[in-house]
């Protein structure tokens, strides 16, 4: 078996037993990237040299009996909105790419990409991964600044779905999802503002975990919407996700919103099963336009949990219908603020020949941002502007309170909520590109979780008739990743997916 077919947990064990070396598995990942990059474009930049150097160091540590822990020597990837010292960070945007960068995602281009915005310090999650001993393979593609659901809004071009390269891998963490699904890394970090980890995980048949807001530090994570953003893992298995979460979670002095919650061993109770677990099926999450195969998969998952000893009941989250509207006001408002710093003054793209300050700003930003980012900046600016602030921004935050209360009420009766992650499986590239509203609807089931700051997990459960993965979403109480992971593990064990992507 080639090492890339192993899960993160399995490769960790193999490394511990000395069956493989980190250099071997890192080399295997890099050659897997060589194989898939031109066809699928998961990466924006690849740091082969750096990853191999870290792999060598890891092997040396292990030889000296100083291995650091389960992730030592296990190569992973970072979504390219997470900064790493010395590596370029583009956030999928021309505004952070080097001027003159053709923004190609060809293998040659991503291996050669070293310029653009280069952070002088690691993000906290990057640092924690490095301290755990993981070689960093590179940075993965994303919708520009995380704004999108298909990775087509990347300023570098789209990533393709390993199950069907004519289709989207979802987004915005589509690069991370595709890289994990294509076996190009053992795990990858993504960010999730309105479903950007869970939705691409569902569309590519991998596991995606969005932790409770405040569980993982956002320091060094390019902000889209601060009150919604959260970093989390995309992995092959639920156990892998738990292991990665354990590595990156925990209070951070550099993030005042990171919570002082103990880092648990989230792998400990994974196999405990769901006997006695109370599962809620939100009535409102069977939305109009939902793919029948997806709906069947969700009801099937509910049956599975019941068969395994859980009780399943229907619950209501009455304000779900307005969650999308509240989200688009809040997320764009915060985005319009967070993206004000890209002004061509201190770093990033500057328009040539701009006359005066006004033009320097307006022209640099017009040239640097793509259409979806501009649309959201404008929407958010409008929602915060004098005369509209109360009707839009404040109103949306009031509705957000109601959405949070819906969840509180539901979680008084049940332990987890089960739904589809995405209303439809992966759709053909280009299909929704000209219709922002229909694209926004792809996040309708994942967004409320961000508004309430809850932990959410997407687990693949089956394939559609035409062979596309379907994922289901499990939402838990704040800080209760453990229950969500345990329920997800139960479904994973029963999942009916017998093959890997790209192989019939």
């Amino acid at each position, binding site marked *: 078996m080639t090492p890339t077919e192993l899960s993160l947990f399995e490769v960790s064990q193999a490394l511990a037993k000395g069956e493989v070396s980190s250099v071997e598995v890192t080399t295997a990942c890099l050659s897997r990237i060589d194989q898939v990059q031109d066809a699928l474009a998961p990466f924006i930049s690849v740091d082969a040299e750096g990853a191999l150097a870290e792999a060598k160091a890891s092997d040396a540590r292990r030889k000296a009996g100083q291995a650091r822990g389960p992730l030592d020597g296990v190569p992973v990837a970072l979504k390219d909105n997470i900064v790493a010292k010395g590596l370029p960070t583009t956030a999928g945007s021309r505004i952070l790419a080097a001027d003159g960068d053709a923004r190609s995602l060809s293998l040659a281009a991503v291996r050669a990409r070293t310029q653009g915005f280069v952070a002088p310090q690691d993000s906290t999650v990057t640092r924690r991964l490095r301290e755990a001993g993981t070689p960093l393979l590179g940075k993965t593609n994303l919708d520009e600044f995380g704004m999108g659901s298909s990775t087509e809004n990347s300023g570098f071009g789209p990533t393709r779905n390993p199950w069907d390269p004519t289709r989207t891998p979802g987004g915005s963490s589509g690069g991370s999802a595709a890289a994990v699904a294509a076996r190009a890394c053992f795990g990858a970090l993504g960010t999730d503002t309105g479903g950007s980890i869970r939705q691409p995980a569902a569309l590519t048949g991998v596991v995606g975990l969005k932790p409770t807001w*405040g569980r993982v530090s956002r320091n060094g994570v390019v902000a889209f919407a601060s009150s919604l953003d959260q970093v989390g893992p995309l992995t092959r298995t639920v156990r892998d996700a738990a292991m990665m979460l354990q590595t990156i979670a925990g209070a951070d002095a550099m993030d005042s919103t990171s919570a002082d919650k103990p880092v648990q061993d989230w792998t400990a109770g994974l196999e405990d099963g769901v006997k006695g677990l109370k599962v809620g099926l939100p009535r409102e999450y069977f939305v109009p336009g939902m793919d029948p195969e997806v709906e069947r998969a969700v009801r099937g998952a509910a049956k599975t949990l019941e068969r395994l000893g859980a009780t399943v009941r229907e619950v209501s989250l009455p304000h779900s219908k307005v969650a*999308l509207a509240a989200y688009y006001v809040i997320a764009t408002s915060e985005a319009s603020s967070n993206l004000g710093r890209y002004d061509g003054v201190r770093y990033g793209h500057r328009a040539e020949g701009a006359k005066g300050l006004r033009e320097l700003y307006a022209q640099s930003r017009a040239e640097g941002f793509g259409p979806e980012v*501009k649309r959201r900046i404008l929407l958010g600016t409008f929602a915060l502007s004098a005369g509209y602030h109360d009707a839009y921004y404040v109103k949306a*935050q009031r509705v957000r309170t109601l959405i949070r209360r819906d969840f509180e009420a539901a979680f008084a009766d049940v332990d987890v909520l089960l739904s589809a992650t995405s209303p439809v499986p992966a759709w053909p590239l280009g299909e929704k590109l000209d219709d922002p509203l229909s694209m926004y609807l792809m996040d309708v089931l994942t967004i409320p979780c961000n508004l309430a700051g809850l932990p959410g997990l997407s687990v693949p459960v089956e394939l559609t008739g035409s062979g596309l993965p379907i994922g289901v979403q499990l939402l838990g109480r704040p800080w209760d990743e453990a229950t969500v992971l345990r329920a997800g593990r139960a479904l994973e064990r029963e999942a009916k997916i017998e093959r890997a992507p790209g192989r019939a």
Partner: protein
Amino acid sequence: MKLSPDQVRHVATLARLALSPEELLRTQAQLSAILDAVEALAAVDTEGVPPTTALAQAKAPRADAVVGQLPVEDALRGAPKAVGSSFAIPKVIE
């Protein structure tokens, strides 16, 4: 809610985004459509419901000490234009 071209222009000025005439038209249509969709908010009864703010728990602030300053090369790395150790921009007339 339908935005007028002037409203779009005003918002674009506030956001410092230059829009071509075609972009302006497209933006006007798309933002108006999104705002129509967002209109659903208005129908929600939020009487007496406080807006969500400050999700994070209060935290003890850090001690007052100098830490984490960058070497000036790092500060200026990636600057589109620098003179000495300053970032340079086209002359600002006040």
